[in-house]
Structures are given as structure tokens and as C-alpha cells.
């Protein structure tokens, strides 16, 4: 009998914590998103679905933009992270762990500080652009900061390891002889990559993609620091509504809409691959 109880006792604190501070808050947020009123007179549960109509009609542009930026950043991450992960996994030799460590190192610096440093680095006459301009590689009036590309690049910069690690994990775990087997079976280098390595590593790409797409879509730090007019992301709106305007119902409604959109992605994905597998890749 004791044996039967053990797992429940072990899991109980974790369950309680996740239930109280994750599940209940999400439910609370849904409840809040259906109230009306304001911070001064108080909020009343009226099942006011109008909040959703308001939220979507007012902020659809920012929502759409966020998804777009998140997608862009994810694609850039894949494009940059895949070759790097590939090279480390296949050619890193005994320095594999060192390379991985180097990829991770910048992330020991606080996210906010990193983003701000990135802003300084990108400024019109800063170390990078200034140097390029002074040697004539860029026109004098060229600038990236405060534009959409700056935001997307910043997002990609901040979330790169989220994609490198899962891809590295699958590539590393993969039996490297399958590549030789492919060559042996008349595949050229390109074919061996496209037909064998890439398909095998796809779960890693998907896992990493998810782990990048979700936080980049919901991020607002990069947009506030690196963006300009017209680059506001949905996260900023949520924060302003919550913390500045104290307009909780609308804020909760937008948050819920964002989450619903992302959850849709998550569950489609989890269905396809199984949650355990995704998390295994992530745990690596």
C-alpha cells in the first residue's frame, strides 16, 4: 500500500505549486477577462465577452506583427543555429562541450543587459555600423536601430541557444554512420544531408523552433529597446494595460488571445510528436 502512495507524495508539492500558481492563475485570468469596470470603481464579473472583441479589434495589428516577428526570428535562429549545431556535433571533436559552452556564455549576462548592449552595438555610429561606414562599406545614412530588422535580429540573438541545444542534442545522439551509409548508397553530400541528416534532426528543429517561437512572439523587451515607431509587440500592450493603465479586463483578454494562439501551436505540435519527446529534447 505504501508503495502505491509514494509517487503521489513525491508529486504532491510540485502539483500543488503548479496548480496554485500556474493553473489557477490562468483560470483567474480568464475570469478577469470577462469582468467589467475599472480600477477605481472595482471590477465586476459580468461575463463581458466584449472585452475580447475590443482587444482583438484594437490590437490585431500588434498581435499579427508579433507572430510575424516571432516567426522571422525563429527562421533566422534555425538558419544560423542549425549549421552551427551541425558543425559542433559532427566536427567539434573533443572541443564539443567547449563550443557549446561558448554558445551559452553570452546568456550568463542578464537578458535585459544583453539587449541593451546589443542596442549600443547597433547604433548608427557605433562600433559595428560606424566602422563599416568609415571604411565605406555602408552609406552614411544607413541605420538598423529602431527598425523591424533590429527587433527581429535582437530576438534571434537572445533566443539562439534555445534552438542550438535541441538541434545539437539530436544530431549528437544520431548514429553518425548513417551519413556514411547514405554515401555508401550513392547519395552525394547534398542528398545525404537532405534525405538523411535533415529528416532525422527535424524533431530537434521543431522542438527548438517551438522553444524559440513562443518566447520571441511574446517578448516585448527587444521591441522596446531596439524597435522604433510601428514595431510595438503584443507583449508591450499587455504590460501597459496591466501595469500602467490598470485596465485588467482588456489586458487579460489580450493575454488570453495571445495564449490561445500559441497554445494552438503547442498542442498541434504535441499531438504530432508527443509531449515527452519534446521535453526530452528540451531537457538536453
Amino acid at each position: 500500500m505504501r508503495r502505491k502512495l509514494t509517487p503521489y507524495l513525491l508529486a504532491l508539492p510540485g502539483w500543488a505549486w503548479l496548480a496554485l500558481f500556474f493553473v489557477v492563475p490562468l483560470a483567474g485570468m480568464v475570469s478577469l477577462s470577462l469582468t467589467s469596470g475599472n480600477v477605481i470603481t472595482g471590477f465586476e464579473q459580468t461575463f463581458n465577452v466584449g472585452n475580447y472583441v475590443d482587444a482583438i479589434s484594437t490590437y490585431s495589428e500588434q498581435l499579427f506583427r508579433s507572430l510575424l516577428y516571432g516567426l522571422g526570428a525563429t527562421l533566422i535562429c534555425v538558419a544560423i543555429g542549425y549549421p552551427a549545431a551541425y558543425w559542433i556535433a559532427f566536427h567539434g571533436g573533443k572541443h564539443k562541450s567547449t563550443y557549446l559552452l561558448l554558445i551559452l556564455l553570452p546568456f550568463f549576462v542578464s537578458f535585459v543587459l544583453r539587449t541593451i548592449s546589443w542596442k549600443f552595438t547597433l547604433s548608427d555610429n557605433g562600433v559595428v555600423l560606424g566602422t563599416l561606414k568609415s571604411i565605406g562599406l555602408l552609406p552614411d545614412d544607413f541605420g538598423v536601430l529602431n527598425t523591424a530588422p533590429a527587433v527581429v535580429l535582437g530576438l534571434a540573438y537572445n533566443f539562439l541557444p534555445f534552438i542550438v541545444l535541441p538541434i545539437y542534442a539530436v544530431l549528437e545522439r544520431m548514429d553518425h554512420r548513417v551519413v556514411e551509409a547514405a554515401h555508401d548508397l550513392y547519395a552525394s553530400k547534398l542528398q545525404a544531408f537532405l534525405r538523411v541528416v535533415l529528416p532525422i534532426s527535424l524533431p530537434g528543429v521543431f522542438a527548438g523552433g517551438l522553444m524559440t517561437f513562443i518566447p520571441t512572439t511574446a517578448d516585448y523587451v527587444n521591441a522596446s529597446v531596439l524597435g522604433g515607431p510601428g514595431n510595438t509587440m503584443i507583449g508591450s500592450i499587455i504590460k501597459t494595460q496591466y501595469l500602467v493603465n490598470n485596465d485588467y479586463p482588456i489586458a487579460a483578454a489580450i493575454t488570453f488571445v495571445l495564449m490561445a494562439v500559441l497554445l494552438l501551436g503547442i498542442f498541434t505540435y504535441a499531438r504530432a510528436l508527443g509531449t515527452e519527446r519534446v521535453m526530452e529534447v528540451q531537457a538536453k
Partner: protein
Amino acid sequence: MTATTEAPATTAAGMPSAPAPAISLAGVTKTFQSGRESFTAVGGLDLDIQAGEFFSLLGPSGCGKTTTMRMIAGFEEPTTGVVRLDGTDVTDVAPNHRDVNMVFQSYALFPHLSVADNVAFGLKRKRVGKAETDRRVTEMLELVELGDQAKRKPSQLSGGQRQRVALARALVNQPRALLLDEPLAALDLKLRQAMQMELKRIQRDIGITFIYVTHDQGEALTMSDRIAVMNGGYVEQLGTPAEIYERPATRFVAEFIGTSNLLTGTAAATTSEGTDVRLDCGQHVRIAERLSEGTSVDITVRPEKIQLSTEPPDASMSRVRGTVTDTVYLGSSTHYTVLIGSDTATGTEIVVFQQNDRDLSAADAIAGRGSEVWLSWRPTHSYLLPS
């Protein structure tokens, strides 16, 4: 199928001139460079492997078997020397343009493709038509008895089934030669024995040249037409299984293949029939070779050549006396350990295999532990080791 179906080790019949060997290595060496150190894995190989042969590379771990194989497949470039397939120099040809296929020890099946797609992989790369591909894949899967598993993923197969997929994947391309690098090492004993038979059967049916790497001598002896015993990057002996087992060219070969009893002694007298050798333990045996007196000799006798008896055997035999120190019953045979010489310190232990073709009780009576016995064997079975 392009392969010959003649008996192995003979070449395709009816050719106007002697055909080039299916695979030939000439002066091939391989030196690995890692950092400042360099290591010669293969020291100089000259090998000619005939079409349709079942050829094994046998040797201890690290002797260069895999490296040799990988040079034939094209995964390693020889440091010096030339690799030829059917007489054509392919030393600089990439693996995907060589007409040999490999079966990897880990199988290296493509985990994301079904069994059928794994097998079809090579054909698709060669742009064989869809219908033809399907036909050949089906045929090959039938051959390896996996016709009903075509839709499965490799992860859903047992070890032996995976092995067969790996084989089918290589064979379906009708390569000039199939390279198998310890294909059975990962299997358990039973499955391994079954697969040995299976492999041999398939090779016989298809008639393709097999180059087989193993470090299991039993496997090599059972399956091969010819064996190259390698050691430290060189071939120590090349020959049929019987040649290698019965006439080992070097002490290394004698000790590596099978169980050997090593007896050391000195030539005491030479007669017309051979030499009388005084063993270190004091007893005398005869060998067929004629040696000058005083020469120190190392002779080996295989355990199965020795007769065990309680009566003194015929004087024409080599014979020694000893005491049984251990018997191991193995069902079909019993292994006896017999100490010849006075005590354990100076004496030599000789292992004797006796097939249990008598009644068990009788066998037990001959040679219980501690009993005094005669060991005898024909002088021709004392094999003189080159020193």
C-alpha cells in the same frame, strides 16, 4: 543479377583472359594524424579478392580490419597505395561513386524511413525507375524474409531483423562486393549462429563477393572461403580456413585461432622418420620434420588431435603421460586438462578434447580428476612453429 553463381574462389567462367580480381589492394597503407602524433593503422596490404569469394579479415581488436574495409568503401583515403575494383583504380573515387556496399556493425539504418524506403534508398539515388525499384525491393525483402515488415520503422524491428534490413539495403544495389564490418557482433549467441547460416546462404544464392570482418575466429572459420589473419596492420597469413587452422604460418596465428597446446623442447635425435624431441618436462615426443640435434623447438598440438587412454598407446605415436587436473563436461564433448611433468610449477598443462561418443559412464571411468592417463597423437599432428 550480374554476379556469378559458380563455386566460390573460382572466377567467372568463359572469360577470354584471366579476369582482374573483384577487389585488389596494392601497397595500401594508412597513417592517422592526430595533432602531432601519427599512428599507422594499416602498414602495407596486398590483397586480391576474387569475384564471388567469401573473404574474411580476422584479427584482434585494433589490427586495422575496419580501416582496411573503410578504405575499400572509400571512407578513408589510403596514405599510399592503390585500391582497384575489377581492375579500375578507384583510390580517389568518392564512396557514392564506388560500386561496393557496406553493412555497418551498428546497421546504420535510417531511423526515419520505413524498411522498404531504407532498402530503396540506394536505388532511388541511382535513379532506378519506380516500378523497377519496387520490384527489386520486394524481391530483396522476400529474400531476407521480411516481406511482411516492409512498412515498419527500424525501431520496431528486432536485432536480427534490423541486421537483415541492413543486408537487404546493401544487396539490392547488386554491388560488385559487399563489405560487412562485424555485422553480427551486436547479436546474442543464438541469433548470431542463425544469422551466420543465413548470411552464408544468401551469399551462396546471390554469388556476390563478401568481405567480412570479424574478430571471432569461429565465425571466420565457419563461413569463409579464404581468411586473411591480420595483426598490427599487416596480414600474418592468408589461406583457406583449414590451411590457417591446421598449418598456422606464425605463432600468432597458432595462438589466435582455436585452442593450441604449446610444447617447448629440444631436438634430441634425428631418425629417418623425423626428430625425437625432448620436452622441457623431460618426456619425449616425435615430430615428422627432421631437425639438427640441439635445436630448440616450439611445437603445437591441437586439443582435438590428442587421444586420451589409460593403456599405453602404440609406440608409433607421439605420447606423453600425465595426470588429469580438470574435466569440463560440455554435453557433446568433454574437455580435459592434463598436467604432464612432475609438478604444477615445472609441468605443462595440455588441453584435450574428447567427443562424447561413448557412454558417459565409460568416459568418466577413463579420466576422472586425478587419474593417470596417456596422451597420444600422430607425429604429423605435432606442428612445428617457425621461430
